């Protein structure tokens, strides 16, 4: 890695699936880990939310000297403050989890950030291989352990997939002593959220898998594979209209549009 790539990892407060207790979010932890691997010195870890949240110490315990907090009330909107912060920073790579474990958990934040900043978004990154001459070679995580290598110009936003390296152990002492830089920003109320009714999520019904496998190897594959849409195809040489038609047909088939 060349020196001086300014990396910003965005972290949120996770939620343990069994206990429902606050924790270091799985993917956000990986985003910090990836950031530490890229450049420990020029990594900024940013949280928009409550500066008193103890979970922030768990992120800091990964060996961060400091952690930047953009204080927001519980009903605040993280997006505008983050856009403002990133615009004024020299960030070249922004890493986030794919989606938060608590709150809206829509997975939209990186997309909205990319839209408002006008940066490219690289979804589900497994690894960032090299960064040189204003471009990064990035490995995207695909199902069944497949990887796709893409080259993206700086600055960009990347969401970090579960396939990325696991977050390192958090240590109590360094976490306790890390400096929390609480910036002076205005808390922006999320007006849309105020009108929502929030209810507990139920597990989504799963599509039944009909196992047609004849051999043990096939069954193993069926049992271990991530569910993928069966009839996918790569369209490269078709016209834009043909590609759009294919997407439209798929949406009809999946009953997303009726």
């Amino acid at each position, binding site marked *: 890695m060349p020196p001086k790539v300014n990396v910003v990892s965005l972290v949120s407060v996770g939620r343990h699936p069994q206990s429902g207790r606050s924790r270091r979010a799985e993917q956000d932890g990986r985003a910090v880990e990836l950031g530490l691997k890229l450049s420990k010195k020029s990594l900024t870890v940013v949280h928009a939310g409550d500066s008193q949240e103890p979970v922030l110490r768990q992120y800091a315990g990964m060996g961060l000297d400091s952690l930047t907090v953009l204080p927001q009330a519980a009903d605040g909107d993280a997006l505008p403050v983050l856009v403002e912060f990133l615009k004024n920073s020299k960030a070249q790579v922004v890493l986030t989890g794919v989606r938060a474990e608590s709150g809206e958990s829509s997975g939209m934040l990186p997309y909205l950030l990319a839209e408002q900043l006008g940066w490219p978004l690289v979804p589900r990154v497994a690894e960032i291989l090299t960064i040189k001459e204003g471009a990064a070679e990035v490995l995207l995580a695909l199902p069944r352990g497949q990887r796709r290598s893409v080259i993206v110009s700086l600055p960009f936003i990347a969401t970090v997939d579960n396939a990325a390296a696991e977050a390192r152990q958090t240590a109590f*002492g360094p976490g306790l002593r890390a400096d929390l830089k609480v910036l002076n920003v205005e808390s922006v109320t999320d007006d849309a959220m105020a009108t929502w009714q929030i209810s507990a999520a139920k597990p989504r019904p799963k599509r039944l898998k009909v196992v047609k496998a004849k051999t043990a190897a096939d069954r193993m594959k069926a049992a271990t594979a991530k569910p993928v849409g069966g009839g996918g195809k790569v369209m490269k040489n078709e016209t834009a209209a043909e590609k759009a038609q294919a997407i439209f047909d798929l949406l009809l088939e999946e009953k997303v549009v009726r």
Partner: protein
Amino acid sequence: MILDWLPPTLIGVLLVLAGIGAIRRMNLWRAGQAEKVDFLAGLFAMPKRYLHDLHHVVERDKYMSRTHVATGGGFVLAMVLVVFVHLFGVKNEILAWALLAALVLMFCGALFVYKRRMNPPSRLSKGPWMRLPKSLLTFSITFFVLTLPAAGILPEGTGGWILTLVLSVLILMSLSEMLFGMTWGGPMKHAFAGALHLAFHRRPERFGGGRSTGLKPAALGEASHGVAKPTDFKWNQLLGFDACVQCGRCEAVCPAFAAGQPLNPKKLIQDMVVGFAGGTDKKYAGSAYPGVEVGNAKGAPDQIITNGLISSDTLWSCTTCRACVEECPMMIEHVDAIVDMRRFLTLEKGETPNKGAQVLENIIATDNPNGYSPASRTHWAADQNLNLMKDVKQADVLFWVSDGAFDMRSQRILRAFVKLMKAANIDVAILGDEELDSGDVARRLGDDAAFQSLAKRNLATLSKYSFKTIVTTDPHAFHCLKNEYGDFGSDALKGVEVLHHTTFLNRLVKEERLQLDTFKGGKVTYHDPCYLGRYNGEYEAPRELLASLGIDVAEMERSGYRSRCCGGGGGAPITDIPGERRIADMRMEDVVSTGAEMVAVGCQQCTAMLEGVVEPRPVVKDIAEILVSQLAEEVNS
């Protein structure tokens, strides 16, 4: 006589040099952290601690205890008299005769030391220790001859200046070892450091038959946690390391050493000495850490221990079974030191190996090591009709279920114990989902922050209810509740009796509240769990329970306070440091060698470890399970 001044001068000079060495050595210990010690009381108690407590441990090896009494006692007496007779020149025949007697005693002892060193067992350190018997013999013979004129046996001036010269050379040789070596780092250092170590021991409760096994709480929120450098130890811990005689009894009982994992308690203590005194381990002449070559370790008082002195794998190999501490004639606290250093690795470096990080994360997020839903803690008892403390608020007995609640094998033990309690009509309640992990694993893995958090929250829960007795089937939770929760300033366990289920059941049987049939199975042996036996001194209740079923326990060679660990303690199965063998396999070999068809256990962790040994092997059963199968069915009248 021209050379008459020579022997007294030599004695004087060497005494002064020894004094200088003593001050130098003390300054090395003083580099450690402050620790409050009652100096006067300690010094006054020292002779008794030596003669009673230390001797009690040495006496497990009769040959050595007698040899040591003769040699050590003879030497101390002789040295005092030498000062009077030869340094101050007190002319008194009685003193001289007493000196001769002391020297003869010492000579006899030294002969046995010499004999043992002819073909020494592998646990003994060689090197300078091999020359010690010769120095002892030289000392006793030299001063014997030197004293003969003073006792009036030989006329003054016998042998002329030649004899005086020869004796002077011998005095120089033997006193260099016995006085100079004592404070400048020779084998005799054990006498000087050992005496002070006994006086200023960090756990004075251990003397006079007492027991002190709970770990000391780590101070949280300081600039660093745990022991990183030798100077982070308390000063009296450093002194304790210096007291080591390198007898290797710890090495002989260490399960990790036997399993070929890179740990040898004796080498560890010697490495600590290298650490605070500075230097390398090149001069170490005992067994190495299995698989690690001697001579490459370097240490200094302010150097991070795991950077070049010892590998962290050595620290993580320990099962905290306390066999080394139990066996150490110098009462050195190996386990305290290991956990102190683990605290640094976990709390400061975040380097708990293998599954350690995940287990600690689970404990923090779900209050159990496997990350199960806290709301499923009481599922095991769905059909047990047990009272919850939340509902009844008070009960005679609080059953501390422990994390065995999540494990299907352990649940069989829990159910068996509940059935026994019901048979005896005990007023019992459980905490249900309010109970949290005891913190045992977190603490032994070095995460004292997680342990203290669990301990305080558990104590807060306990303080809401009233009960007279707390019983658990898990010796690890038992140890935490009984010996470690007391450090957190809560009254929740004040006046409460904390019991292991075997102790509790033994009382019920003695009070005839349980009707049991005679056991008619085959031969049975009993495995003492470390945290029940060595940590809490309960060796009898399990055996009495088995005897009450008519079982004549076929004891293993290593049983009671010498029981060999199952390999399941101290987070060892989680950190899983590779060795050549598995500790549980070795323990099962012990079981098999008794010819037993069943091994009785009093710990779910031991059950899991021993049942993990491949079949065919004897059946593993908790004592509660054995009792429940012999519970006499009530006759309907």
